[in-house]
């Protein structure tokens, strides 16, 4: 008897492709996505943090510090960028403080370092009174500034050991009663050795020789460079991640509810109601338009409820962002409604819809950043995420609530969402042809 039941269970699974996909493909695709997010993109590459660096000091020390930063595998140092509004082929120009700040403000990167003029003369002071490096940050990414600051200290230590040692000896000379001529001569020759070693490392790095990679040299010395952090966005916000997660969760569940509600089409096909409606004065295009608007209404309500909850319980500042919120909500709900219609028109049964929509929605939600913020992913994964429309929706909400973006700054997100909406609607209409006259 048990054998019979086992056989029935096996046959059911063998003949149910949706169940097979849910059992095998969904976990594998999820594993792959998160493996790529947290473990590089599958080519052994680790995620590197893009950091803009502005050299206002233009000294040998600042140049050496920047070179050391560039050697850090955990960082991708950005020294140049196109001017705002420049044409596609326009050459990049060296960053200045204002441009770097704008890049952080726009969300192009989360951290910018400004090495101030006079940094050279105060580098390596152990009394904490040196000219501080200014770190411009976007607090929506709480990890990036800490990574950048830590690697900055490491780079400072390894980039100019001779300068550090000389400054140390100067202090020692001053407060210990003075060095003997012999000690002074020995320290001078040691300085030359340190300088030679630092130069040799730079040359080796230039040749791509990883034998002397910065990570192999060890450190354990922090606090060489004073860092002054300034938040360039969201400075007054009490709980920045709330807006991100409100949007992330709202968009993901919006997709689920849109596909479930879109499935009413399949119920109506099964019950014969759709056939009956099509015998009235309503055509298929009118029917889909009605369903689409109905799904949009549902989506708008869902997002509004979610953000109201976030406002009252988690102190999200909804009221000062109402216009941007309204536009993004409408655009996101419209795209999600079209998505729901495509899923419903593509599937033949409710069961199929349920399985396929779960797989698709969870996948694009992971890629699009509903589960794990895209700005914490590697650059490659961030780019891959852009193929899912919910990434654009999330970016739009983050722009509204975090970057206080003006309406015109939302145009890229709105444009992409509008294109998705139209494209998906066309696909849904084409797929719905099977329900028209047979």
């Amino acid at each position, binding site marked *: 008897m048990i054998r019979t039941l086992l056989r029935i269970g096996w046959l059911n699974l063998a003949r149910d492709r949706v169940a097979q996909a849910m059992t095998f493909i969904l976990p594998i695709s999820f594993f792959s996505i998160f493996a790529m997010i947290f473990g590089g993109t599958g080519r052994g590459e680790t995620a590197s943090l893009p950091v803009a660096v502005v050299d206002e000091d233009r000294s040998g020390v600042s140049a050496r510090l920047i070179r050391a930063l560039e050697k850090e595998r955990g960082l991708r140092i950005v020294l140049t960028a196109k001017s705002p509004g420049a044409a596609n082929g326009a050459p990049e120009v060296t960053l200045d403080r204002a441009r770097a700040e704008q890049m952080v403000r726009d969300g192009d990167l989360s951290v910018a370092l400004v090495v101030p003029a006079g940094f050279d003369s105060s580098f390596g002071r152990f009394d904490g009174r040196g000219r501080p490096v200014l770190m411009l940050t976007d607090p929506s990414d709480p990890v990036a500034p800490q990574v950048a600051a830590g690697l900055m200290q490491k780079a400072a230590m390894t980039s100019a050991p001779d300068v550090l040692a000389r400054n140390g000896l100067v202090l020692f000379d001053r407060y210990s009663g003075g060095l003997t001529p012999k000690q002074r001569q020995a320290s001078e020759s040691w300085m030359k050795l340190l300088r030679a070693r630092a130069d040799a490392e730079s040359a080796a790095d230039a040749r791509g020789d990883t034998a002397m990679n910065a990570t192999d040299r060890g450190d354990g010395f922090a606090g060489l460079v004073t860092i002054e952090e300034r938040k360039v966005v969201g400075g007054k916000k009490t709980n920045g991640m709330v807006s991100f997660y409100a949007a992330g969760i709202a968009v993901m569940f919006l997709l689920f509810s849109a596909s479930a509600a879109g499935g009413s089409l399949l119920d109506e096909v099964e*019950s*014969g109601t759709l*056939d*009956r409606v*099509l*015998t*009235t*004065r309503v055509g298929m295009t009118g029917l889909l338009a009605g369903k689409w608007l109905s799904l949009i209404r549902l989506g708008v309500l869902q997002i509004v409820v979610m953000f109201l909850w976030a406002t009252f319980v988690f102190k999200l500042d909804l009221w000062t962002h109402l216009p941007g919120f309204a536009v993004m909500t409408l655009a996101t709900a419209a795209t999600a409604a079209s998505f729901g219609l495509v899923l419903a028109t593509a599937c033949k049964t409710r069961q199929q819809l349920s399985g396929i929509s779960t797989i698709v929605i969870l996948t694009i939600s992971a890629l699009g950043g509903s589960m794990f913020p895209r700005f914490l992913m590697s650059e490659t994964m961030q780019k891959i995420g852009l193929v899912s429309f919910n990434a654009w929706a999330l970016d739009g909400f983050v722009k509204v609530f975090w970057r206080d973006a003006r309406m015109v700054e939302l145009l890229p997100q709105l444009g992409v969402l509008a294109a998705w909406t139209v494209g998906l609607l066309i696909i849904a209409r084409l797929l719905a042809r099977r329900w028209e*006259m*047979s």
Partner: protein
Amino acid sequence: MRRPPIEEDGTNPVLRVADARKSYGATEALRGVSLTLGPGELLGLLGPNGAGKTTLVRALAGRVRLDGGAIELHGQPLQGGGGRETLGVVPQDIALYPLLSARENLQAFGELNGLRGANLRERVAWGLEWTGLKDRAKDPVKQFSGGMKRRLNIACGVLHEPSVVLLDEPTTGVDPQSRERIYEMLRRLRASGASLLLTTHQLEEAESLCDRIVILDHGRVIESGTLAELVSRTIGSARRVTLHLDRAPASAIAGLEDGAGGSLAHAQVSDVGRDLPELIARITAAGLRIEDLEVRPPSLQSVFLHLTGRELRE
């Protein structure tokens, strides 16, 4: 596609179908069906499952595109899905919104059929009264019995006062009491001037309700006319006799049809007074005892059996 000519028969039909053809792959669902529906007439479309009744109704409703043939509604050719404002369609399925109340369903289908404002309110009130669901107007349809759903299903298709109503097996799955209530609704509908085309495989329904009957089998019209005409043209004055014997006959008895070999036997007699005593004598002579005997008047069942050699529900 050239439109085949529709033959004039002297009447002024509200609906005409000429040489309707439809295939699904290798299966021919309709193989040249022609019929007419007169003003105020109730026409029964009779046939077993798979005869092509639903395909024909769906073609009339604009849901199936014919491969060939023509349809005219009030003299106007119907092409595609449009031009059917005066047509009411009652599908075989309970095509209602289960979470909506009776009133809300009526309102929804009324609006979809073009009713608005006071006219809509008036027709919804009429629908609730006509179906006897006035007291349940606010209850969700999913709580209704099968018969109540059927009645509402019909009302939703006729709320906009169509002059021609297509009813695809409107009494499927309802108990005799509910069925009689639906028959009464259809009689009232017909009395209001509507022409009805009713598909069914229930002989009693066709016999008791329909003015004329069209018998469809394998996608073709095999006979049509009033019940009397059908009987006259097929079995004439013959009667069908059913005999309950004490056991199965050991060998063939003249006049008895080849049955399944059981104790129930059938015979067709042309003249009851002359042929029946002779049949009884032959059975008795064969050593069998007749436990019961039934002589049936000519029925649609007999007509159908005569025409197709099969029971209707096969």
